[in-house]
């Protein structure tokens, strides 16, 4: 949507935006005075019909959507641009990182990745630093993250091996109950101990974090140096994703005249190729016109490298697509509740994975010139359509069947799936049971997921956290993402999902994300 003067005026007058939020929105409006990246009429028509969607990233992208700087390299070498020598001790490392975050661009205006903080800080934590000192220093750092970068998409990762820093971070999470940072724990079948997982599960009980990711599967697909950032997008460290576009499978099916096989044979491949056209146009603007990879200090200092970047091909509305296609065959089974429907869902995702693997994109050497497939977790504007490959809110089957339905999709989505499982308070009495579910899920090939507990103050909207008490405070919440959460709560009734639930989201034309 092209910017109109009244949009600018509305942003300036909007009382619920902070100064910084206004600047962010106004920048988006300025960008949208320009024409969108040039695409052909068929792609334009599909974009206007929202069959394909550019996530409202803006008409002239001037930075990659998700950037994962190599913080370890920066700490080790220092930075000429930041005028910082290599960090020599823990204090210097913490200050270095805060400075670097403030100079790291992203789609949200805040960094989406803070680094794997336990791995980054462990070299600076020796025996001379006792537990109390470590706690005090990390506590101030943790508070700084939440207050300086108040956006729930800002994300850190914890390594698979339990260590002093990871333990202290989980402890601080339970103490401070902050929205920021979002956290993912890399779970390895042997490196990650039960003691560590129990500590993490107890933290989930307190504030819904961390998210759990399958370290072996991620390393297989992305290499050793990867991280989950923002709303559970797994990408390469020192790289990232230029853009995230998404295909609305429900709309794709609705746009098709004909039977199921002809959708697979004709309409689906066309829509996938139109996605490719849209993504190509956007990537070219970032790389060839905005000169991000020539001009950014991160690129100049080797902290991000173009050859570690790719783009993300998102899909959503799988549930509706399956159910509509079942109807067309005169079948009544639905996704998550019927073997035939589930089998159809696997046929859809594997077909898309195949098509995407044959879709060349420019400047995507980070994945051999192809996009990473992503199960896109929704945005707050989505109505009557289910996030990614999830089962619709409120109709989720019992946990075992839920896991068995969504699990087979996970291996296809190298850049993340993020199913969300909502548990009742019974889990609190038996955290070992949650550890069993985590281990079982990863052993059976799931990639990543999150638990929500209905008794704490935190709710995961599309993957990012919002405090229920903050939702009640609107207007005037401090975190940008809380506004997105409010939209999602209104539009998709996420607060109503029966214990054990699902939903997600990412960006909004309104808030300029």
């Amino acid at each position, binding site marked *: 949507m092209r910017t109109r003067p009244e949009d600018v005026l509305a942003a300036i007058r909007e009382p619920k935006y902070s100064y910084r939020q206004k600047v962010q929105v106004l920048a988006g409006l300025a960008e949208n005075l320009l024409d969108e990246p040039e695409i052909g009429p068929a792609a334009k028509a599909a974009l206007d019909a929202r069959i394909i969607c550019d996530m409202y990233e803006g008409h002239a992208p001037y930075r990659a959507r998700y950037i994962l700087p190599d913080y370890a390299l920066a700490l080790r070498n220092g930075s000429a641009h930041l005028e910082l020598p290599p960090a020599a001790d823990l204090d210097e490392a913490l200050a270095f990182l805060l400075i670097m975050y403030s100079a790291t661009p992203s789609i949200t205006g805040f960094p989406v990745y803070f680094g794997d903080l336990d791995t980054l800080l462990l070299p600076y934590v020796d025996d001379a630093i006792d537990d109390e000192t470590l706690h005090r220093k990390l506590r101030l750092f943790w508070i700084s993250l939440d207050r300086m970068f108040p956006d729930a998409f800002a994300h850190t990762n914890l390594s698979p091996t339990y260590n002093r820093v990871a333990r202290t971070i989980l402890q601080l999470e339970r103490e401070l109950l902050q929205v920021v940072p979002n956290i993912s724990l890399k779970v390895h079948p042997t490196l990650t101990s039960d003691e560590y997982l129990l500590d993490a599960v107890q933290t989930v009980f307190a504030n819904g974090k961390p998210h759990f990711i399958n370290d072996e599967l991620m390393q297989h697909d992305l290499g050793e140096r990867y991280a989950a950032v923002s709303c559970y997008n797994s990408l390469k460290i020192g790289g990232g994703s230029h853009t995230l576009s998404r295909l609305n499978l429900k709309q794709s099916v609705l746009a098709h005249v004909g039977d199921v096989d002809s959708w697979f044979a004709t309409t689906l491949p066309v829509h996938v190729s139109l996605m490719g056209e849209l993504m190509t146009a956007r990537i070219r603007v970032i790389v060839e016109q905005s000169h991000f990879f020539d001009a950014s200090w991160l690129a100049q200092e080797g902290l991000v490298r173009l050859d570690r970047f790719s783009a993300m091909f998102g899909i959503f509305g799988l549930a509706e697509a399956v159910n509509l296609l079942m109807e067309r065959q005169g079948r009544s089974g639905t996704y998550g509740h019927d073997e035939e429907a589930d089998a159809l869902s696997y046929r859809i995702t594997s077909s898309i994975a195949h098509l995407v693997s044959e879709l060349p994109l420019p400047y995507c050497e980070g994945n051999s010139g192809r996009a990473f497939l992503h199960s896109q977790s929704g945005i707050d504007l989505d109505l009557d359509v289910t996030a990614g490959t999830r089962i619709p809110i409120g109709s989720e089957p*019992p*946990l*075992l069947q839920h*896991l*068995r339905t969504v699990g087979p999709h996970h291996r296809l989505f190298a850049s993340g799936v993020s199913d969300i499982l909502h548990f009742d308070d*019974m*889990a609190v*009495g*038996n955290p*070992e*049971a*949650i*550890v*069993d*579910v985590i*281990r*079982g*899920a990863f*052993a*059976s090939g799931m990639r990543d997921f999150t638990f929500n507990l209905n008794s704490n103050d935190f709710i995961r909207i599309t993957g990012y956290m919002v405090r229920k008490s903050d939702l009640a405070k609107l207007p005037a919440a401090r975190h940008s993402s809380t506004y997105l959460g409010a939209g999602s709560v209104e539009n998709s009734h996420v607060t109503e999902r029966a214990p054990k639930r699902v939903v997600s989201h990412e960006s909004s034309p309104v808030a300029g994300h």
Partner: protein
Amino acid sequence: MSHRLSLVTDFLPFTWVDGPGNRLVLFFQGCNFDCKACHNPHTIPLESVQAKRWSIDDVLERVRASMPFIRGITASGGEATLQWEFLVALFGRIKADPEFSHLSTFIDSNGHAERAVWDALLPVTDGVMLDLKVLDDAQHRQLTGHGNARSRDSIRYLAAVGKLYETRLMLVPGLNDSDEQLRTTAAWLLAIDPLMRVKINHFHAHGTRSPASAWAEADAMRRERNRAVLLDAGVQYLC
């Protein structure tokens, strides 16, 4: 032995309240107590139209579907030990088969089983959750239709051989949850094992028959009081 059948009322692929970790639980039909407070009274008769005859392979098929998310299987009921022959065969098969042998085997019981039954079960059973409805024998008789001598023997015996995972106290307000009753019960349990794991199950009227359906449930304050008394009496592992 796989041709052996047992009467199963129901099962859950996952349970978080029937032993350590995430488990599959089987509810066997038939109970040797007739507890007033039973919230599944349809499981009490030895036969029921709702119950189905399951073979060991029927059970293992369900177990296979729950793997790898579970760390074990729990036999509950009804009263699982009434089907002890089936259980010996089932658990024996689980322990002997490499596909299943990593799973732990637990029994949820009212303890009204003879020593010989335990001796048959224990070689293939990792732990038992045992209910002590009330310590006083006469009251026990009132509540369940039977005395509790055998249940108390079972607690002592299972604790002595290291197979008692936890003792469960089903507390009904005004009936068996006075401070004095709880102190006496705690003292009796801790004399057997000072580190005994004790779990409180508060009475719920839902599903019970008359007259229990009209009994009061404990409010939050009373629950807190029950906990405090047991903790004060020296119970260290209170769930």
